[in-house]
């Protein structure tokens, strides 16, 4: 029971981070119908930017978080403006290839700037690393901070998406770009914001995650594939689905790692992706699948 509670706690914590990254993947997917392969690497860059501000320059954690989120916003906007906009007419595979290219550029840049392969950079924890007991269950305070932070970001995003004009324009564009354009929504600008916001969410996840894991240039892909599994599980088009899917992937990983083997932990998200895409492509929350002729 003790072990189950512990796994539950750690599964929900990592799951919340996957959910944040999956949220960004889903937002971008809804708008462009393409998967941003570089999403994990944008996450990784966000982590390294925060590391630079917080550890190397000694700025406070919250300031670093805000700066990293801002930098992510700018990088996402620039990537959309420079590359992805021109490719939208060329089709989805072109965009996917371009995002693969971007992912390798970011990875190479991180390797060149912040150290070579195998350099695992520790990020100082925010809270006392000693676990505290909640009714017999031991929790690391850092995990609670991460969880609270992730929930806060999700709440902010949900409110933004539902109640602001820009959020509603994003929804309209995702539903039907042509119709949105007809009613006067500046679709191109909305796409820029979509990429920017998706990247900013990923960067916030990176800054939250950095203190509990380590940073290294290859973390981006690992995180991308796990969060993508979460997004796929949630149906890829549903924002609540991305959150639930991300949490489920965190739990699946924690449980399979705890009860089966740590090796299985690494592979469980690949299995989920293959299984879900092949047998239930609409995921848990996605709508019915239409086939366009």
């Amino acid at each position, binding site marked *: 029971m003790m072990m189950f509670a512990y796994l539950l706690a750690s599964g929900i914590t990592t799951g919340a981070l996957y959910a944040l990254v999956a949220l960004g993947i889903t937002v971008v997917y809804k708008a462009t119908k393409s998967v941003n392969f570089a999403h994990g690497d944008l996450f990784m860059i966000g982590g390294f930017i925060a590391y630079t501000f917080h550890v190397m320059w000694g700025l406070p954690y919250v300031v670093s978080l805000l700066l990293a989120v801002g930098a992510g916003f700018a990088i996402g906007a620039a990537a959309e403006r420079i590359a992805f906009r021109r490719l939208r007419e060329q*089709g989805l595979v072109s965009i996917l290839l371009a995002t693969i290219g971007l992912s*390798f*550029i970011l*990875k190479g840049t991180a*390797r060149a700037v912040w150290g070579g392969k195998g350099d695992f950079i520790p990020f100082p924890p925010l809270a006392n690393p000693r676990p505290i007991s909640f009714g017999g269950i031991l929790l690391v305070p850092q995990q609670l901070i991460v969880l609270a932070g992730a929930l806060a970001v999700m709440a902010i995003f949900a409110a933004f998406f539902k109640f602001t004009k820009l959020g509603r324009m994003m929804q309209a564009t995702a539903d039907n770009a042509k119709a949105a354009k007809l009613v006067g929504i500046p679709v191109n600008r909305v796409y820029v914001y979509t990429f920017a916001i998706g990247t900013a969410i990923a960067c916030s996840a990176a800054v939250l995650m950095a203190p509990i894991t380590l940073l290294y240039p290859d973390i981006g892909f690992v995180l991308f594939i796990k969060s993508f599994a979460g997004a796929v599980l949630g149906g890829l088009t549903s924002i609540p689905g991305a959150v639930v899917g991300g949490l489920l992937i965190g739990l699946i990983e924690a449980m399979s790692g705890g009860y089966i083997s740590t090796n299985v932990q690494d592979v469980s998200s690949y299995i989920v992706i293959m299984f879900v895409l092949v047998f239930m492509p609409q995921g848990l929350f996605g709508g019915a699948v*239409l086939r366009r002729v």
Partner: protein
Amino acid sequence: MFGNRQFLILLFAALAIVPAVANPYILYICNLGMLYIILALGLNILVGYAGQFALANAAMFGIGAYGAGLLQVKLGAPYFLAAPGGAILAMLVGTIIVFPALRLSGIYLGLSTLAFAMFSQWVLLHWNSVTFGGGGFPAPHLDLSPLPIGPDLGIYFLSWIVTIALVAFAWSLVRSRIGRSFVAVRDGEIAAQSLGIDLLRYKGLAFAISGFYAGTAGALYAPLLGYVSPEGFDLFQMIIQKSMIVVGGMGSVLGSVLGAVVMVTVLELLRAFKSTQEIVFGAILIVFVMFRPRGLVTLLQRLPGWEEPLSSFDSRRMLARAAAHVSEPGSPRYPAGRDLVDESRP
């Protein structure tokens, strides 16, 4: 005058005299280049011709190398049995992917096959009792002992013969009924079906052929390197092969060859710097997708005196032009790359 065929003949004639003039390092690079020609061809048949955006080619390459190496090391099979064994194993595994490919297309297929590739790498890393785990294992060099040819030259000429055979096979394949069916499946699955093209059969064939090409390259790679380990078949391997066909030209045999030659050169020039390699490869991929989506082969075709027979490439251009003509005014022009993808949900 001068055309695809003459270009390929010149290239392979040049490769034939390389051993006489080059040092062992250049010999190794040329040999590696030929393996990448095979890999790029296999991938291009699948992605460029049949339009199946799969990302598992690096895994098939690995399965071919492991298959050929392990059959020799574990079962003591001679190389000339083990190598086809590895290639056929990769072909079989590649064919299994057709079942998800019947339901998925575009990026869904790409990402599920990517997950499959990561899964197979995980198997190579953790199935210690068979694959020797993360450390890999030494694979025997090619031994042609009755013949007075050393292992380096032996694998070089074996690769040379196999590459020529596979280029010739691809060349005639894409001009055959099968190749045209691939193009039909790529340009519109439902239209292809309505013409009586069996999707299972042709997609299966495309995956099988592509897997066989990648597996063959793997079976040649094991004795060339003399060592097999999981790292060689990772995500970066995938992007190397992908960038080759993008740079050379999707849906073009000559483009595959061209892309492989160019990218192997770039790769070797940057060998010492992993981060630079990644940045350069990523940048090349983006630049080509954005500015030259048909690849370098279109530059060749513009040379004065270049003869280009009517090929699938031209028919596609004509189709694109026709589609642009009939589409409503004000709608985006028929995009150049869209014929590579079926945008329907899986």
